[in-house]
C-alpha cells in the first residue's frame, strides 16, 4: 500500500513538474515569435517611422532605440534575457517601459474583466444546468439555437445594439465613458460587461451542459437519486462539481477571448483600459510597445492555461496532466 502511494505521488510530482517545464518552454517559443514579429516590417522601421524627410542622424538614433544597430543574435539574446527579468521593452514614442504603461491602464480593464466574469457565472451556471437536465425537451433545442446566434453575432454589433437599447432608447446607462470611482463605475461597466457576457456565457453554458449530460450517466448520480439526496445538495455535489473540469480547462481560452474582445469593447464604450492603449500604440506605429503588448497577453494566456491544468489536477488527482 505504502509503495503504491509513493509511486502515485512521484508520478503526480513528475507530471506536475513536467507540466510547469512545458509552460516555460512554450513561453520561450512565444517570446521568440514576438522577437521576430519586428522583422515582419518591410524595409527599415526607423525610416518608416520618421518618414522620408528624416536626417541620417535621426534615423541612426531610432535604429539605436529599436536595437537594430547591433548583430541580430546579440539583439535576440538581449531581448530574451530582459524578458525573463520582466522587461518587455520600451515604447519608442513615449520612451517609457511598456510594462509600466500597461500597468497604469490595467485597473479599468481589470474592473471590466471582473464584472464580466461575475455576470458570466451568474448567467451560465443555471443556464448550463437547465439545458443539461432538459436537453431532450423544447428547451434544449431553444438553448442550442439561441446560443449559436449569440456566439456568432460579432461583438462590435452586439455592443452597438446594446448601446442602442440601453443608452439611447431606455436611457439606463451612459452612452460611453468611464467613471473611475468605485460604486459609480459599475454603472458605466454594466453595458460593456453585458455585451461580453452575451458572447461568453453561452460558451461556458454549452461546455457545462455537455459535461453535466456526461455526469448524469454516471452510476453515482443514479445512486444519489435512489437514496433521495436533497435537491440542493444533489445539484452541487452530484451534478455541478463533478462536471466542472472541462469548464476550468477552458480558462485559457476565456482569458484570450476576454483580452481580444476587450480591445473592441474598450474602443466602443470609450473605456481607457489596456485595450485602448493597444489601439493607440498601433495607430502611432509604436512597434516596440505593440511587441511588448503581444508578449504580455500571450504570456497571460499561457499562465492561465497552466493554472487551469494545475487546478484541475488538484481538484481531481485522476486528471491527466499531459
Amino acid at each position, binding site marked *: 500500500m505504502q509503495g503504491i502511494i509513493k509511486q502515485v505521488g512521484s508520478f503526480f510530482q513528475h507530471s506536475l513538474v513536467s507540466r510547469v517545464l512545458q509552460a516555460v*518552454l512554450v513561453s520561450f517559443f512565444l517570446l521568440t*515569435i514576438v522577437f521576430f514579429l519586428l522583422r*515582419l516590417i518591410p524595409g527599415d522601421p526607423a525610416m518608416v517611422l520618421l518618414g522620408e524627410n528624416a536626417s541620417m542622424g535621426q534615423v541612426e538614433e531610432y535604429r539605436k532605440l529599436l536595437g537594430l544597430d547591433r548583430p541580430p543574435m546579440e539583439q535576440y539574446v538581449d531581448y530574451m534575457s530582459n524578458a525573463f527579468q520582466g522587461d518587455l521593452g520600451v515604447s519608442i514614442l513615449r520612451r517609457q517601459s511598456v510594462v509600466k504603461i500597461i500597468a497604469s491602464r490595467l485597473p479599468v480593464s481589470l474592473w471590466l474583466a471582473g464584472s464580466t466574469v461575475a455576470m458570466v457565472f451568474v448567467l451560465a451556471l443555471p443556464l448550463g444546468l437547465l439545458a443539461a437536465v432538459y436537453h431532450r425537451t423544447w428547451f434544449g433545442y431553444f438553448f442550442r439555437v439561441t446560443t449559436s446566434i449569440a456566439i456568432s453575432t*460579432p461583438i*462590435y*454589433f452586439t455592443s*452597438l445594439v446594446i448601446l442602442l437599447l440601453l443608452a439611447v432608447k431606455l436611457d439606463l446607462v451612459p452612452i460611453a465613458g468611464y467613471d473611475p470611482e468605485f460604486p459609480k463605475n459599475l454603472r458605466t461597466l454594466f453595458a460593456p460587461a453585458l455585451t461580453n457576457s452575451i458572447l461568453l456565457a453561452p460558451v461556458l453554458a454549452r461546455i457545462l451542459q455537455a459535461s453535466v449530460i456526461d455526469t448524469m450517466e454516471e452510476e453515482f448520480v443514479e445512486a444519489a437519486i435512489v437514496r433521495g439526496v436533497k435537491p440542493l445538495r444533489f445539484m452541487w455535489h452530484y451534478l455541478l462539481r463533478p462536471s466542472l473540469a472541462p469548464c476550468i480547462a477552458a480558462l485559457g481560452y476565456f482569458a484570450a477571448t476576454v483580452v481580444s474582445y476587450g480591445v473592441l469593447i474598450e474602443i466602443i464604450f470609450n473605456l481607457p483600459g489596456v485595450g485602448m492603449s493597444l489601439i493607440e500604440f498601433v495607430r502611432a506605429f509604436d512597434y516596440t510597445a505593440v511587441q511588448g*503588448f503581444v508578449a504580455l497577453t500571450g504570456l497571460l494566456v*499561457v499562465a492561465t492555461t497552466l493554472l487551469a491544468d494545475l487546478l484541475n489536477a488538484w481538484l481531481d488527482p485522476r486528471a491527466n496532466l499531459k
Partner: protein
Amino acid sequence: MSFAMSLKTLNREALVGILIIVLVILLGIIVPIASPNDASGFVADPLAPPSMSLPFGADHMGRDLFVRTFAAARLDIVLALLGASVPIVVGTFIGVLTGAAERKIAGALWDALINALTAFPEIVLVLAIITMLGGGWDGLLYAIWISRWAQYARLARAKTLKLHESEFVQAAKVLGYSRIRILAKHIMPNVYSEAIAYGLSDFVFIIVVIGGLSFLGMGVRPPTPEWGGMLAEGRIYLQTTPRLVLWPGAILSLTAIGVALFAQGLARHRKEAVR
C-alpha cells in the same frame, strides 16, 4: 445524386444554415449588378430615409445603403473564404507531415511551438502583424494566414498520430505500402475532411475578425463598402439614424449565424451517422 441525397437527410439546423448562406451570396451577387446605383456613388441627400428606390435609405454621405450592404457581403465573404482556405490547406499539410515524422523530442518541441503560436489572443496578434506589415485588405489577409495556420497544424498532427495507430493504416503498413502512399492515400483524405469540418466554424470566426479589424480602421479601408467599416462609420449616427448600423450589422450577423448553424448541423449529422 449523392449530394441531393445527403441534403435530404440533413437536419433542420443545417438546412436553415444553407438557406441563409445561399440567400446572402445570391443577394451579394445580384444587388450590386442589378441596381442602377453604384456602391460608392452619391445618389441622394445624406441620411435620406428609406424609399422605393432606396430600400435601406441613404448613408451619411448620401450613398445607397442597400447596395453598399450587399456589395460588402460579396467582399467580406470572398475575403473570409480566402482567409480560411489558405490556413486549412497549408496548416493541415504541415500538421500531417509533423505527425508522420516519428521523433519524440522534436515532436515535443514542435508542440510547444504550436502552443505558443496559438496562445496569443487573436485580435491582438492580428493587430500586431498588421502594425508591422501595414493594413489594407492584403495586410489583413496575411495577418489571418500567419495567425490561423497553427490551429490546423495542431489538429492535423493529433489526427495523424491517432490514425497511425488505427487498424487500416497498420494493415497498409503490413502490406508493404510506401510511407508516401500511406500518407497520401490513407491519412491525408481523413485528416482533410476533419480540417474542413473545423474550417467551417473557423469561417465564422474569420469573417468576424475581418469585420472587427476593419471596424478598428486597420483592415479594409473606406470608401470600399465593408461591413465592419460601415459599422464604424455609422456608429456616430447611432442616436439619430441607427439603421446605418443595424442593416449592415444584421446582414453580417445573419451570415455568421447561417454558417454557424450549418457547421453545427453538419457536426451533429456526422455524429449521428457514426452511431
